[in-house]
């Protein structure tokens, strides 16, 4: 292996001057002699003439051995480190070399003005220069997927192309999948072996433990099998650990608002979180909230302890409806990619809700809609800002007319004896509105079933069976979430501040949910009776809660959790698909746009400025159908702008409802910011002899890291070489008769 030496203690190299000592001694010895008047001169001269060549060779050899030994000693004192050229330059036979560059975004970690990836590129090009003509070179870009980006015989032209490819190789906003990488290496190695060449793979990576090992530093079986397969195939695998010694990194790991539905002029709580992946505490971390591209607020986190996460919250008010962007941005650290997190929020105007009270005779707290009014219309705060996006109007069931629903986005029906589904509610649903129904003592199950059946569009999927539970109202059951991927249910999952299962339900209406009905929550009784059921409908949203909205059958309305329950239910019903605007890298963006409002072309601008023009695919029929946009080039974290082409024939009054701009956010999957390295010893402990050879970073300052990442200290071999040279000198001197006996 060719080596380029540098020295950690260059001051000690003055000892190299000692190499001149044997030479000086040699010449001094020739200047200091004694004189002997000699008779047998003829024989001496004859011996000299015969031995001249041999003597010169012996003298030079001994001198070289002595000088070499001293040079080795001096070099060892200088603590030489060798940059490995990775390939034996003298190897005459053709080779197959697979070069894999870790393209995960952690490779963008900056140090001394250069990224780890830049160093990887440099090393890869060094290696490229060592390849001989006719060698086969495969270059792999190792990210979430591993792509071969170059595969050719090495020629001058190919070398140039390969260099360009290495320079152009862009990092992915994702982690490296080691298993995928090893599979691709094995595939390429098999091809190389098929040509009768020996395959060698060199991976340039920051060697994050999370990529190579499972939590707890345990082996990953799939990776282990792949490594063993490579070892069996005789493919040499070397991993260059380019990771920084410092590995200090903070990540914005969360950004959300405290509700599913955001409305104009209604403040929301923007919640973020910062994780410290370093081994040291971080202090004085500045965090900025960016709204629609402008910094609106800033906070400073006093401390983020090592390995921990700290939450940060902002109160923010969107002033107008439409899709807005939020970004939480950290003070830049060495790895900038994970210093930001993005959120796209569809801000509605105020949501108008009609509450329909089925218990017309009751008054005060006994009214079926009493608690709903309280939940949906909380009092404003001291600043006079509204706390709810909902504007509520209550009518008795007898006044549920089309006129009453005019301008309403949703209707909440409480304890009505029947549904007028074929009437105004059906119209509300048809125009995309939401109907939320709470049952109660007044409910006539048969009448409901008839109305649901008459309403069509999936109403038949739900059938009321009659009241159930404890008639004495003493033995309650709890609510249990069921459809965990539903936005409403997700709001309650893994939260400590609000919960779905706090209150007791003593009585409810048993329902039968058929195909087309989705049970969002059940009761905690043995047969898990449906508690909240959503009907799947082509238009509008219909949800049935099988107990009361008042305190007749449950104490739920008296619990604080009732407010978010009603809010989130209505939010998920009136803003369907809102969660789809916030994706992770690699997830496709899919959204339907009314065909009646938009033409078939859309322009998408990626965070780095790349523009994609695509056509909307018609997913429906006629003017009532939808265009469906499917976009999967979400490989960059950031905000994506969608520019739609609105139909020129659209009613100017509806233009506000069908904006020409849309927005979605793509975020990092998280965890890639954990730069904790996996050492060779850990890999060997996990994968045994199949573990790759790791060329590990040396110790010392970070700015010397670039060199040391591919360095090995050579003072030990040099000392061995010195000892061998001295031994050889002693042997030769004895052999040549130079030792005095």
């Amino acid at each position, binding site marked *: 292996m060719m080596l380029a030496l540098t020295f950690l203690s260059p001051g000690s190299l003055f000892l190299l001057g000692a190499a001149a000592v044997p030479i000086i001694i040699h010449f001094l010895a020739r200047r200091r002699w004694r004189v002997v008047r000699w008779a047998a001169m003829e024989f001496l001269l*004859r011996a000299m003439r015969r031995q001249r060549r041999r003597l010169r060779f012996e003298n030079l050899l001994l001198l070289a051995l002595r000088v070499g030994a001293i040079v080795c000693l001096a070099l060892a004192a200088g603590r030489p480190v060798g940059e490995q050229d990775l390939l034996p330059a003298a190897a005459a036979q053709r080779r197959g070399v697979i070069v894999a560059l870790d393209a995960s975004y952690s490779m963008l970690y900056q140090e001394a003005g250069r990224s780890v990836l830049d160093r990887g590129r440099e090393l890869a090009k060094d290696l490229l220069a060592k390849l001989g003509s006719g060698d086969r070179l495969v270059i792999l870009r190792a990210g979430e997927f591993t792509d071969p980006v170059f595969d050719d015989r090495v020629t001058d032209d190919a070398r140039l192309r390969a260099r360009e490819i290495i320079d152009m190789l862009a990092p992915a906003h994702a982690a490296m999948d080691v298993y995928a990488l090893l599979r691709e290496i094995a595939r390429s190695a098999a091809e190389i072996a098929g040509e009768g060449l020996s395959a060698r793979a060199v991976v340039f990576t920051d060697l994050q433990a999370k990529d190579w090992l499972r939590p707890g530093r345990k082996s990953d079986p799939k990776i282990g099998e792949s490594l063993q397969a490579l070892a069996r195939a005789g493919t040499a695998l070397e991993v260059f650990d380019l990771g920084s010694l410092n590995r200090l990194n903070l990540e914005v790991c969360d950004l959300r608002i405290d509700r599913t539905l955001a409305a104009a002029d209604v403040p929301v709580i923007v919640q973020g979180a910062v994780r410290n992946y370093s081994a040291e505490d971080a202090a004085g971390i500045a965090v900025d909230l960016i709204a629609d591209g402008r910094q609106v607020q800033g906070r400073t986190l006093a401390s983020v302890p090592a390995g921990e996460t700290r939450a940060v919250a902002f109160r923010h008010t969107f002033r107008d409806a439409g899709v807005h962007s939020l970004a939480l941005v950290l003070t830049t650290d060495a790895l900038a990619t994970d210093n930001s997190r993005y959120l796209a929020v569809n801000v509605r105007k105020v949501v108008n809700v009609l509450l329909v009270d089925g218990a017309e005779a009751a008054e005060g707290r006994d009214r079926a809609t009493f608690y709903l009014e309280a939940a949906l219309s909380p009092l404003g705060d001291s600043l006079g800002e509204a706390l709810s996006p909902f504007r509520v109007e209550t009518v008795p069931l007898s006044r549920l007319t089309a006129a009453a629903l005019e301008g309403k986005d949703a209707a909440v029906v409480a304890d009505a004896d029947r549904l007028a589904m074929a009437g105004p509610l059906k119209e509300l649903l048809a125009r995309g509105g939401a109907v939320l129904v709470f049952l109660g003592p007044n409910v006539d199950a048969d009448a409901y079933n008839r109305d649901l059946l008459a309403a069509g569009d999936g109403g038949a999927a739900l059938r009321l069976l009659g009241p159930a539970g404890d008639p004495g109202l003493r033995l309650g059951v709890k609510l249990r979430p069921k459809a965990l991927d539903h936005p409403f249910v997700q709001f309650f999952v893994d939260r400590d501040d609000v919960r779905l299962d706090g209150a007791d339900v003593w009585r409810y209406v048993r329902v039968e949910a058929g195909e087309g009905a989705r049970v969002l929550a059940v009761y905690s009784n043995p047969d898990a009776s449906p508690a909240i059921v959503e009907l799947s409908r082509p238009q509008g949203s219909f949800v049935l809660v099988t107990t009361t909205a008042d305190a007749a059958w449950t104490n739920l309305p008296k619990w604080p959790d009732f407010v978010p329950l009603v809010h989130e239910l209505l939010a998920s019903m009136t803003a369907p698909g809102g969660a789809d605007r916030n994706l992770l890298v690699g997830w496709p963006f899919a959204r339907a746009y009314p065909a009646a409002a938009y033409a078939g072309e859309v322009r998408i601008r990626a965070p780095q400025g790349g523009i994609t023009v695509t056509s909307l695919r018609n997913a429906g029929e006629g003017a009532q159908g939808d265009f469906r946009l499917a976009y999967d080039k979400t490989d960059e974290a950031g905000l994506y702008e969608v520019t739609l082409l609105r139909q020129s024939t659209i009613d100017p009054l509806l233009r506000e409802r069908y904006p020409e701009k849309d927005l979605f956010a793509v975020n990092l999957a998280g965890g890639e910011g954990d730069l904790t390295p996996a050492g060779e010893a850990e890999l060997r402990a996990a994968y045994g002899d199949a573990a790759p050879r790791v060329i590990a970073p040396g110790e010392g300052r970070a700015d010397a890291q670039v060199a040391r990442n591919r360095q090995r200290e050579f003072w030990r071999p040099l000392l061995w070489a010195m000892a061998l040279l001295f031994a050889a000198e002693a042997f030769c001197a004895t052999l040549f008769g130079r030792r005095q006996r």
Partner: protein
Amino acid sequence: MRDWRKYLDPRALSRIGRLELKARLIVEGYISGLHRSPYHGFSVEFAQHREYAPGDDIRHVDWKVYGRSDRFYVKEYEEETNMRVYLLLDVSESMDYGPPGGLTKAAYGRHVAAALAFLALRQQDAVGLTLFDDQVRTMIPPGGTRGQLQTVVSALEDVAPARPTALGDVLAQAASDIRRKSLVVIISDVFDDLDAVQAGLRRLRHRGNEVILMHVLAEDELAFPFTRMTRFEGLEGTGEALVEPSSLRKAYLAEIEDFTAQLRKRCRQDRTDYVLLSTAQTFDVPLATFLAARARSRAR
């Protein structure tokens, strides 16, 4: 009882000044060891018995006669007087090398020559001496008188090596100068052209001489024990070299061994006695070699 044999060691002799005395001590030391030596009887031949008189060496008492006759008789030996011994000593500059504190090759050669002269004269041989470097510097014709030893020793003591060697030429000249069959003892480091040396030796042998080549090399020349960086400056103007000795020892020793092996081989070809002497070596080896050659010469 005085242990004469210690005087066979050059180091023991180094404390004694007079060469004549040294020669005597060497020979006495050697002779005293002959009682247990196979060389016993080589030097003198038994002639008759006479009655023991005070002052006679008790070693010469014939105990067998005493056993038979109960009277003391001593053996009398017939001393030879007809052997001519030529001592040729190299006194060139290269012989002036010796390790610090040790004998130079020239000094060692002087001791050997003096001892051989003493031994030969003691056995009634006529002894001559030739000192040479690139030519003959001193020549003392053979003689067997009492004063001959003094003459030889005086000449040896006057040696001052300063000139290069031309052993081949000197041997050739000696071959022509020696007219009667003789025992020729050459004491030299033989740092000369081997072909010329061999030619000179061959000529000596062809004239019927018994020839002994006593090849004297310094201890250092045979072991090359140097360790420090050394500048070797050649005697006799043979150049110089800055050498790390340990690196060259092996090759140098191989060269020396090859040289002595070559010389030994050539001597054997011409039936010349060859003995390699180190300046650290005791003197019994050259004396024994001399006596063996003398016996062989007389037997012919």
